[in-house]
């Protein structure tokens, strides 16, 4: 008899977990309250920037994840728009330069070959960049992918390997018996399983509240602007140093001088649209766009690429990124509750970390050795 696993949540992480679980031979049911990629995974950008990861366990995971991405299009027989594009973090002020010099030094120590280049070199690599930049980082291993395509392709692959996928089906609560999770309850039925993986991103804590288990994931809102189609001109993924500074801030309890956390993150889709971000702000579960934030992101974009003043914006949206206090995802079991696992809390690293997160969860749930030290990511660290 095969091992029955329920995966709660049909975003990138849930779809990936379901896919790798079917590869491990589990009998999988994926339960999603709305639709595949209808939450955070459908409101993000396409960057797989390793440079933006904190040197340490998260960066190690990202490197493993990239290795999986390289094989994934062939494995899933689907075009995912994966491309090794290289990436830059552009630098506008001497203060940013000092911070980036420090970061690059740490990355080089961690074995990553990130380089600092001059503003002029940056312009040669990426025409259209402002002459006012004083420098940039460059790393050729940064990549990009279409997260919608990854979500759907993983869910479809899981399905063709026998997984049941229940869309439009919210998980109302976890079913327990003597401190053991034995399944989930939906509005129409009880689904029993040997294990449950909760991959509900920013909505994860609500499922554990009734058991007195505190899952410290907080929604952090991010804006993205979408431009009309433009001729292909962005060759690399681009972030600004201000973006990195905001990303690394663990400030959910402090008063911050820049409450919007605006920093530039820009990429171009296959269709030609630009995705221009971003912001980082704690606004609860509110997904309304804020005109002031949109303006500030626009200013950052035009400062970096003056020619974008003439680009038309067709849409703005926000997504809720699952922030954790230490900036690392939660991947692992829950102390005091058997049979349940959490795979959530990736904030802005979910696109990069989706394949490895799914693979790790599948190995963990099926009792296989993943060959990685995953205790670092357990909930009990908080």
């Amino acid at each position, binding site marked *: 008899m095969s091992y029955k696993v329920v995966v709660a949540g049909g975003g990138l992480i849930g779809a990936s977990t379901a896919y790798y679980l079917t590869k491990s031979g589990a009998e999988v049911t994926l339960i999603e309250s709305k*639709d595949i990629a209808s939450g955070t995974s459908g409101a993000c950008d396409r960057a797989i920037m390793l440079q933006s990861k904190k040197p340490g366990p998260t960066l190690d995971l990202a490197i493993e994840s990239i290795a999986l991405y390289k094989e994934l299009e062939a494995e899933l027989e689907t075009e995912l728009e994966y491309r090794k594009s290289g990436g830059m973090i552009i630098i506008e002020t001497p203060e940013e330069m000092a911070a980036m010099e420090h970061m690059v030094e740490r990355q080089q120590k961690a074995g990553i070959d990130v380089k600092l280049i001059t503003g002029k070199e940056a312009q040669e690599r990426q025409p259209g960049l402002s002459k006012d930049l004083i420098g940039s980082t460059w790393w050729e291993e940064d990549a990009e992918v279409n997260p919608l395509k990854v979500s759907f392709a993983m869910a479809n692959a899981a399905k063709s390997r026998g997984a049941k996928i229940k869309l439009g089906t919210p998980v109302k609560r976890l079913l327990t018996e003597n401190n053991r999770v034995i399944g989930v309850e939906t509005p129409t039925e009880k689904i029993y399983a040997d294990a449950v993986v909760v991959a509900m991103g920013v909505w994860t804590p609500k499922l554990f509240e009734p058991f007195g288990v505190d899952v410290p994931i907080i929604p952090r809102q991010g804006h993205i602007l979408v431009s009309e189609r433009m001729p292909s001109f962005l060759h690399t993924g681009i972030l600004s140093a201000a973006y990195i500074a905001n990303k690394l801030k663990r400030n959910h309890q402090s008063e911050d001088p820049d409450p919007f956390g605006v920093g530039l993150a820009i990429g171009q889709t296959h269709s030609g649209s630009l995705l221009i971000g971003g912001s980082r702000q704690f606004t609860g579960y509110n997904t309304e766009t804020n005109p002031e934030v949109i303006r500030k992101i626009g200013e950052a974009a*035009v400062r970096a690429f003056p020619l974008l003043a003439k*680009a038309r*914006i*067709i*849409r703005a949206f926000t997504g809720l990124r699952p922030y954790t206090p230490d900036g690392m995802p939660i991947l692992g079991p829950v102390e005091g509750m058997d049979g349940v696992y959490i795979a959530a809390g990736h904030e802005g690293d979910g696109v990069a970390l989706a394949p490895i997160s799914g693979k790790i969860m599948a190995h963990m749930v099926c009792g296989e050795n993943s060959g990685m030290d995953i205790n670092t990511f357990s909930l009990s660290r908080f």
Partner: protein
Amino acid sequence: MDDMIICRCEGVYLSDILKAIEEGASSVPGIKKRVRAGMGYCQGRVCQPVIRDMLESKTGGEKMPPQQRAQTPVRPVLLDDMIRR
């Protein structure tokens, strides 16, 4: 040839939309995320009512399928005009 273009901005055909519904899409955003209908220059102003009708006929018209959320800017705007104070 009984196929036709439903979303002109993104060149999405009727058959693409039917396939998305078959795959499980039950809302306008669900179709959009699978096949890009409504993702382009007009942001679904033209194709959304047609797609909504298609979804409604699939679900038996019991309840209105969720629609795409209207977002700023309500029409394409130059970035220059957006950032002008």
